[in-house]
């Protein structure tokens, strides 16, 4: 009971006000993201309403805003182009199912393998994709469009210097719409982009054949949507956690995103996830509780359904200005400054994530590249932290080797090369008490060292294996088994 009160009703006035600001900012975004995905504006608007309302109840991070997003929209373009809207709705439902499974198996913990550089790369790539998606609206157009976009940006960034009481993107849209209607400008409007909602959404089942072929078509998209959706949601949750200095329930958020997407698919909406920009706007406007997310969704639907005629008159140039603001706000400009200060490997991971995403238009591919590269760099870094020291004893008859550091696939060769097998010696002691053997490759390397010494007629003793390493060695090593020499051939 306490947590319900805390999550919902501890900050009512500010939550409602912030919800209103967010709803106003959501309208252009939902329309623009629908256009990016290649569907009618109403698909994004229904999705944004539905996802915001459902996640308000089911999500694990109060105060975070989820709706139709650019990150998800760029994934669906090809599916919509090749198979149509109904397949997108089916893929949306399947995405939800996969996200619920991800939440149940606690996939949220996998976020710890996504380094800060990958996250920054993801955010920057997302900002660039949002910006690039605006370019078709800015190419082969008259100067009026450029002037309108510039005026829009002027109002968005200028108005807050005069007053912060009203959302400046909304004022920009209203002013530009009125101006364009009064002057009768012949430029593209939202109405030209497709159908707007004129009624409340209704329940419908995606009209696709329920067979294996359909699954084959939608599954790859759903998997990517699941990954991108969860990644952006987890990242946004971390950002909101930091801003509000409170904790979120990441696994509940995964399940919540899934439930929201299933609901969205069944009312004819596209898949969505948490939104970095909108969540920042919400927190900035004073929103902290679940009520802010719920009210954002409800205000959005009310405004769109009842002000549909006006919404269709909004010039696309005004939306472009808002989206440029979103991309500027999403991009981490600080990351450019820190390129020169951060370790080279971190910068390479960040830039690679951005490059792969922008080139493939696939955020999942970019993140995967970043995660793999981080892994490789980490292995390389840790692999170099291995030293083998030695000292001779017993008038040159014995040599003591002391191994310090981590022995695993990346450092195994270095480990093997660190011993002098040709030294004429009777006995070798290898002290591994200050090292750790992590994998089969490490155990094989130890085998190799022991057997190489034995071939020279040298007695070998391995000392101080820690418990975990000893278990590995017991299980997989051959040097301590009688037929070791024959088995080594198999390695």
């Amino acid at each position, binding site marked *: *009971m*306490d947590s319900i009160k*805390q999550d919902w009703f*501890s*900050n009512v006035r*500010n939550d409602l*006000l*912030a919800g209103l*600001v*967010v709803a*106003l*900012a959501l309208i252009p975004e939902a329309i623009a993201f629908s256009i990016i995905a290649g569907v009618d504006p109403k698909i994004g608007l229904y999705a944004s309403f539905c996802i915001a309302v459902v996640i308000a109840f089911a999500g694990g991070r109060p105060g975070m805003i989820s709706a139709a997003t650019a990150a998800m929209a760029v994934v669906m373009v090809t599916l919509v182009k090749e198979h149509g809207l109904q397949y997108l709705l089916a893929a949306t439902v399947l995405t939800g199912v996969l996200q619920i499974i991800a939440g149940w198996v606690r996939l949220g913990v996998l976020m710890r393998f996504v380094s800060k550089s990958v996250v920054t790369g993801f955010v920057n790539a997302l900002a660039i994709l949002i910006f690039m998606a605006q370019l078709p609206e800015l190419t082969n157009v008259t100067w009026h469009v450029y002037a309108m976009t510039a005026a829009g940006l002027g109002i*968005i*960034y200028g*108005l*807050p210097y005069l*007053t*912060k*009481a*009203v*959302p*400046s*993107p*909304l004022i920009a849209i209203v002013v530009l719409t009125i101006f364009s209607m009064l002057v009768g400008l012949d430029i593209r409007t939202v109405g030209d982009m497709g159908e707007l909602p004129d009624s409340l959404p209704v329940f419908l089942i995606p009209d696709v054949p329920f067979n294996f072929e359909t699954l084959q078509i939608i599954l790859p998209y759903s998997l990517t949507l699941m990954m991108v959706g969860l990644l952006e949601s987890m990242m946004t949750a971390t*950002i909101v956690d*930091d*801003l*509000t*200095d*409170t904790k979120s329930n990441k696994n509940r958020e995964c399940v919540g995103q899934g439930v929201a997407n299933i609901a969205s698919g069944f009312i004819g909406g596209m898949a969505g996830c948490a939104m*970095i*920009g909108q969540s*920042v*706007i919400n*927190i*900035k*406007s*004073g929103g*902290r509780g679940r009520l802010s997310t719920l009210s954002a969704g409800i205000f959005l639907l009310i405004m769109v359904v009842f002000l549909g005629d006006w919404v269709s008159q909004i010039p696309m140039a005004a939306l472009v200005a808002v989206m440029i*603001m*979103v991309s*500027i*706000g*999403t991009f*981490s*400009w*600080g990351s450019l400054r820190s390129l020169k200060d951060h370790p080279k490997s971190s910068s390479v991971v960040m830039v690679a994530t951005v490059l792969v995403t922008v080139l493939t238009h696939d955020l999942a591919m970019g993140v995967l590249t970043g995660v793999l590269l981080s892994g490789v760099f980490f292995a390389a870094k840790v692999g170099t932290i291995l030293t083998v020291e030695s000292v001779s004893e017993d008038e040159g008859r014995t040599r003591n080797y002391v191994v310090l550091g981590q022995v695993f696939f990346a450092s195994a060769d270095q480990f093997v090369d660190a011993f002098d097998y040709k030294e004429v010696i009777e006995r070798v002691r290898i002290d591994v008490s200050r090292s750790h053997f992590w994998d089969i490759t490490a155990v094989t390397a130890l085998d190799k060292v022991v057997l190489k010494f034995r071939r020279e007629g040298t007695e070998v003793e391995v000392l101080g294996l820690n418990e975990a390493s000893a278990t590995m060695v017991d299980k997989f090593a051959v040097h301590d088994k009688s037929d070791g020499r024959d088995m080594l051939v198999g390695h």
Partner: protein
Amino acid sequence: MRTDNKILACVDQSPYANVVTDYAAWAARKLDAPLELLHVIDRDSEVTESEDHSGALGLDTQEQLLTELTQKDQIRRKVVRDQGRIFLNVLRERALATGLSEVDVRQRMGTLLEAVQVQKDSVRLYVLGRRGASGDRTQRDIGRHVESLVRVLKQPILTVSNEFVEPRRVLIAFDGTQMTRRGVAMIASSQIFRGLPIHVLMAGQKAAGTTSAADRQMEWARQRLAQAGFDVHTHRAQGDPEIEIAKAIQDLEIDMLAMGAYSHSPWRSLVFGSRTTDLLRSATIATLLLR
């Protein structure tokens, strides 16, 4: 200063803090135990305020916002911390004035539940107000923390209400169950009521007639307490325990009640209501909850 086996008084900035301190100081004297006053700053209760509804995202908005919010929090937190320290020191003086030689104070961020759980191994008795800082506004009979706190803690908890009355007569609500038998044993072996007359009341269905089981249980309680040197009086009452206990408190001029608490699951309490909550609501005197 000793820090184990202490009396932990949970205080918030409400009029009940004085009463909690007085009872905690009384228990500390009786038990010759160290006393600590705990004040928890529940940061979740802070409501945000924002003048910026511009909805505009500029360069590095997120970083700027984080810096701005951190600065605001820092200022607010410092004020709250200072207020809390002054408040605790006033209470500390109050406790020292009752004759205690040492009283420790502790202020913690977070929730009360977390704060008491962190210390649970070094505490022998908790003292808390039945209502908290929001009591006057919400008109609640029982503060929202009380039940969750009592369910989590395994040590005895002394819940107090509006004023401090030095206990002179004690009533044990006894129903023969394992929990109340443990409570009787606990009281028999404790110093807290040493020298005070103890009344044991069995009320409700069990007390009806002259069932041999009820007789045996009552006799067991009487003997257990008498052996420990208490002046014991036993009473049986047929009827609703809540009403009978309230009546006995009035008739016998009782000023402290001891009883078992929340032996049923929270789900059962949700459906059928909780007897402990009902009793706490009806009893206006300090109540020792035994777990």
